[in-house]
């Protein structure tokens, strides 16, 4: 993979981080997909060499700083997500589209679950409705990505 492609992939993660801090009306904000999770899943699928756990941890840490969540929360969730995605990647690429989508949803659920559960321990619990809506829009985003890009 060329350096340009690597930079582009990391820029995608950076863009996901920036988008996640764009102030939105509450109703729209509830439906905001987990941008970082989507970007990381994407990165693992299309460029597994660049999807390092350390990168995920740093991105998660930056998200913690940007959104004001407890330090380490998103870092932990992103690390778990990338680990899962990297280990499930061979299933993802060799599966039919519907199973591919389900696997991606499973990864995203794991990410959101970690954020919700660990965040809950540290008094950073979001609403279940927000979690569900994030999962739905994240799923839609993943679906669009899988439809338009060949793996």
């Amino acid at each position, binding site marked *: 993979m060329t350096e340009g492609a690597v930079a582009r992939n990391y820029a995608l993660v950076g863009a996901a981080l*920036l988008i996640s*801090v*764009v*102030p939105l009306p509450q109703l729209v904000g509830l439906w905001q997909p987990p941008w970082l999770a989507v970007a990381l899943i994407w990165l693992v699928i299309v460029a*597994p*060499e660049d999807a390092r*756990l*350390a990168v995920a*941890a740093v991105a*998660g*840490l*930056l998200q913690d*700083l*940007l959104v004001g969540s*407890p*330090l*380490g*929360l998103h*870092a*932990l969730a992103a*690390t*778990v997500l990338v*680990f899962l995605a*990297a*280990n499930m*990647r*061979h299933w993802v*690429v*060799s599966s039919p589209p519907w199973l591919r989508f389900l696997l991606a949803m499973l990864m995203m659920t794991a990410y959101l679950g970690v954020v919700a559960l*660990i965040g809950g321990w*540290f008094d950073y619990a979001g609403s279940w409705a927000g979690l569900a809506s994030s999962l739905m829009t994240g799923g839609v985003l993943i679906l669009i990505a899988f439809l338009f890009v060949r793996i």
Partner: protein
Amino acid sequence: MNRWTATLRADRFRRRKGPSRAGECLLICLLSFGLLVVEANFPAVQKVRGIGELMLVPVQATVRLVSGGFRGVQGYFREQSSLMRENQELRTRLLLQDVDLQQMSALKSENEELRSLHALNAQLGSNNLTAETLPGNPDPSRHRVTLNKGSRQGAFIGQPVVDSGGVVGQVTRDYLVTSEALLISDANHALNVMFERTGLQAIALGTGRRDHRLLLPFVPAHADVIQGDTVVSSGTGGLFPAGLRVGVVEDVRNSSGEAFLEAFVSPSANLENPRQVLLLRSEPPPPGAEPGPVNGDSPAAAAGS
């Protein structure tokens, strides 16, 4: 084929490196969890967090700036659209209020007319018959109106019709529940009148013109008639009571060498669009009574077209 082979190789490689990846993951997870615990229990770590956030201030500011600009543009269009919608609503409301206002104005005018009619009724005697005109004139070349009172209600041929302004005409046909009145401006109508100021008597002929003017022919050339003189019914014909206002002299013409003047009178009553009128309760003329040739106060002369 090559793509699949490469993928499998990469995955095999990844699986071979699985334990170290798992270890790395475990380490990072522990560090992250530790960070969470430390931050939750040691407030001093907040300072470290503050430094980190300070470094991200430019990023946050840029994001806010971009999103603020975007919101500004969005707000501008939303405001435009909202203003247009509001404008449309206000226009509709204005239109409705205009219609209401017009109705109010019509009602006010009608109310004033009814009040005048009521006063006139009291003045002429309380046993008169009020009537309203019905829309439509089957023969536009003639000046006549249809009234909503007929012989059943007491209308009869030759009955004088007046409104708050003055003489309107007389009933020329009486049906069971409606009647037809010929206006004084109709070309076939004649009415005995006199000048209120001088007492000079004359005959007011309808001209059939659209401006409803009346013609007073054969006024002696030496007579004192000026523009603005009020003309009232003289009562000599027997149908119209004396003193009912007929109109105002608008124009006086005297062709040189002629022994008579011609005076044009503008009617005082609303002949253009009469609405509420009063049918004066006088006795019907005895059957067989023949009026004089120009005595417009007779029903036969008026209706004989």
